[in-house]
C-alpha cells in the first residue's frame, strides 16, 4: 500500500513537476480547512475525555483511554434514542407532506390557467419572507387552544408550512423545463390531469423532489426554536432537546455533554456527505430565488 502510493507520486512528479505556487496553495487551503473544522475536531476530541480532564491547559488532549462510556451515558441520560425517533418521525412526515403539496402547487402555477394565480403567488412569497420567530407567539396560543401543543402535529404543520414556498419554487423551476407536448399527447389519449401529474410529471420531476427533500430533511432535523416552544412533554421531544436536557441536569458531566453534541452533529454530517450535490443545488436554487 505504502510503496504503491509512493510509486504513484513519483510517477506523477516525473510527468509534471510541482510548482511552488501549487504547494503554497495546497498548504494554505489545508490550513483553512483544518481551521474551519477545528471547533468540531475539538468537540469530538473532548467527547472522549474524562470530565476531569477538561480543565487541562492543552488545546488537544489524546484521550487515553477513550471514554466511550461518555457516549453510553449520552444515550441513556440524554434520552437520545426516543428523541432520535421523534426527530425522525417528525422530519420524515414533514418532508413527505412538503413534497406532495409542493408538487401540486407547482403544477397549478406552471400549467393551470386560473384567475388568482398572481394573488396566490404573492401570498406564497409573503410566506417566504415572514420570519419563523414572528409566528412563535401566536402559534403557541393557537396550538394551546386547539389542543395541538405537545403533539407531533405541532411540529409537522409549521415545519411543512415554512418549507413549502422554497420547495414550490424549486419544483416549479424544474417543471417549466419539461416540454408541454408530452402532456398534450397524453390529453389526446384521454388522460386526466391527475393521470398526467402522477404518471408523467412525477417521474420526470424526481431529481427536483430529491433536492427539496434532502434540504428539507436537514432543515427539519436541525430545527430547534419551534420544538422548544411547542413541546414540553418528554414523549414528543426531538433530538436537539438532548443537549438542553444535559446542560440542565448533568451540567458537570462535560464529557457526556460533548458526546451528545457529537451524536446530534454526526447524522447531519453523514447526510451532507452522501447528498452533497443535492444539498448544494437545493440551497443555491432556493437562495437565488429568495
Amino acid at each position, binding site marked *: 500500500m505504502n510503496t504503491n502510493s509512493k510509486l504513484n507520486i513519483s510517477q506523477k512528479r516525473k510527468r509534471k513537476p510541482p510548482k511552488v505556487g501549487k504547494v503554497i496553495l495546497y498548504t494554505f487551503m489545508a490550513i483553512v480547512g483544518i481551521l474551519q473544522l477545528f*471547533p*468540531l475536531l475539538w468537540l469530538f476530541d473532548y467527547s472522549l475525555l474524562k470530565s476531569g480532564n477538561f480543565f487541562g491547559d492543552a488545546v488537544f488532549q489524546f484521550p487515553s483511554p477513550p471514554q466511550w462510556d461518555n457516549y453510553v451515558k449520552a444515550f441513556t441520560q440524554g434520552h437520545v434514542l426516543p428523541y432520535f425517533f421523534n426527530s425522525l418521525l417528525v422530519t420524515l412526515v414533514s418532508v413527505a407532506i412538503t413534497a*406532495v403539496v409542493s408538487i401540486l402547487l407547482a403544477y397549478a402555477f406552471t400549467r393551470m390557467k386560473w384567475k388568482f394565480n398572481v394573488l396566490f403567488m404573492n*401570498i406564497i412569497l409573503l410566506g417566504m419572507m415572514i420570519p419563523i420567530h414572528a409566528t412563535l407567539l401566536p402559534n403557541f396560543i393557537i396550538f394551546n387552544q386547539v389542543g395541538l401543543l405537545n403533539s407531533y402535529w405541532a411540529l409537522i404543520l409549521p415545519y411543512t408550512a415554512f418549507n413549502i414556498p422554497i420547495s414550490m419554487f424549486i419544483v416549479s423551476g424544474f417543471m417549466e423545463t419539461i416540454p408541454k407536448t408530452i402532456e398534450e399527447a397524453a390529453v389526446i389519449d384521454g388522460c386526466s390531469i391527475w393521470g398526467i401529474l402522477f404518471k408523467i410529471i412525477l417521474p420526470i420531476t424526481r431529481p427536483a423532489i430529491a433536492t427539496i427533500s434532502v434540504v428539507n430533511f436537514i432543515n427539519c*432535523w436541525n430545527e430547534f426554536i419551534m420544538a422548544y416552544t411547542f413541546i414540553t412533554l418528554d414523549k414528543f421531544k426531538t433530538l436537539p432537546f438532548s443537549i438542553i436536557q444535559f446542560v440542565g441536569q448533568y451540567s458537570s458531566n462535560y464529557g457526556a455533554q460533548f458526546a451528545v453534541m457529537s451524536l446530534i452533529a454526526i447524522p447531519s454530517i453523514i447526510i451532507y456527505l452522501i447528498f*452533497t450535490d443535492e444539498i448544494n443545488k437545493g440551497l443555491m436554487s432556493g437562495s437565488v430565488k*429568495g
Partner: protein
Amino acid sequence: MNKLMSDKKTIFLLVAPGFLILVSMIIFPIGMSIYYGFTDWGGIGDYNFIGFENFKNILFSDEIFRTSLINALLLTVATILIQHPIAIFLSILITHCGRWEKVLRTILFIPAIISVVVTAKLWASIYNPQYGLLNNILDSIGLSSLKQDWLGNPDLAIWSVIIVTIWQGFGYAFLLYYAGLKGVPDELYEAAKIDGANPFQLYTKVVIPLLAPMMRVAIIIAVISCLKQMEVVYLMTNGGPGNSTQFLGNYLYQTAFSYAKYGYGNAISVLFVIVVLIITVVLNKVLKRDVGEY
C-alpha cells in the same frame, strides 16, 4: 387541453392543501399577532385594547428594541465586510485546487449543516472561561493576558456571537460566490489572458466585477438572515449580559414568555415582520439594477 387546464375543481384540489397549511400556520397567526399587538394581554386572563400604545412605546422609548436593531446592523456589516471577502477569496483559490476542489468545498460547508443547538453550545464551550478552547489557545501561544470571559463581558459578547454566526453561515456565502465563479464562462479567462492580463488583473478587473449579481443576492440574504438572527443568541447568551447581545427574535420571545407581556411581545413581532418586509423589498429594488450579461 385548454378546458382541462382551467378546470376549477382540479385547480382547487391542487392549490387547497398547500394554501390551507400556509395560511393557517403563517398568514393567520400574523393576523392574530396584529390583533394582540393592540392589547395589554399578559398571556392569561382578561385584556384591554390599548390602541397604538405598544407600538408607540416600542418605536419611541424602547431602548432594547433599538439595541436589537443596532446589533442586527452590526452583525450585517460584520458579515458583509469580514465573511464575504473571505468567501470570495477562498472560492477563487478553491477553483485552482483541481481534484481537491470538491473535498475542500465540502469541508468549508460542513459547519453550515450542523444543528444550531450544537453550534451554539459548542461555541459556548469554546468561550468558556474554565475549560474553553479559546483561552487554552491563548495560553499556549503566550497571550494569557488576553484571556477573557468572552460571553460575560458586555463589550465583547456581541463580537463573540458575531464570530459564531460568521463561522456558521460561512458555507452559504462561500457556496454562492463559488457558484457565481463557476458561471463565468471559460472564454473570458482565455480572452483576458490573451489580452495580457496577469492573474491579479484577471480577477480584479474581469472576474470579481462579473460576480456583482451574485454579490447582490448574497448581500440580500446576509441582511435578512442577520435580521432574523435568534437561535444562536438565545442559546448562548439569551440576549445578555444586560441586553448587549439582544436581537429582535430573541427579544420578542423573552418579552412574551419570560416577562409575560404577551401583547407587547406581539407588537414587537409585528414590527419585526414589517421591518423584514420593508428591507427585503427595498433591497430588491435598490440592488436589482441589471449588471449585464456575459
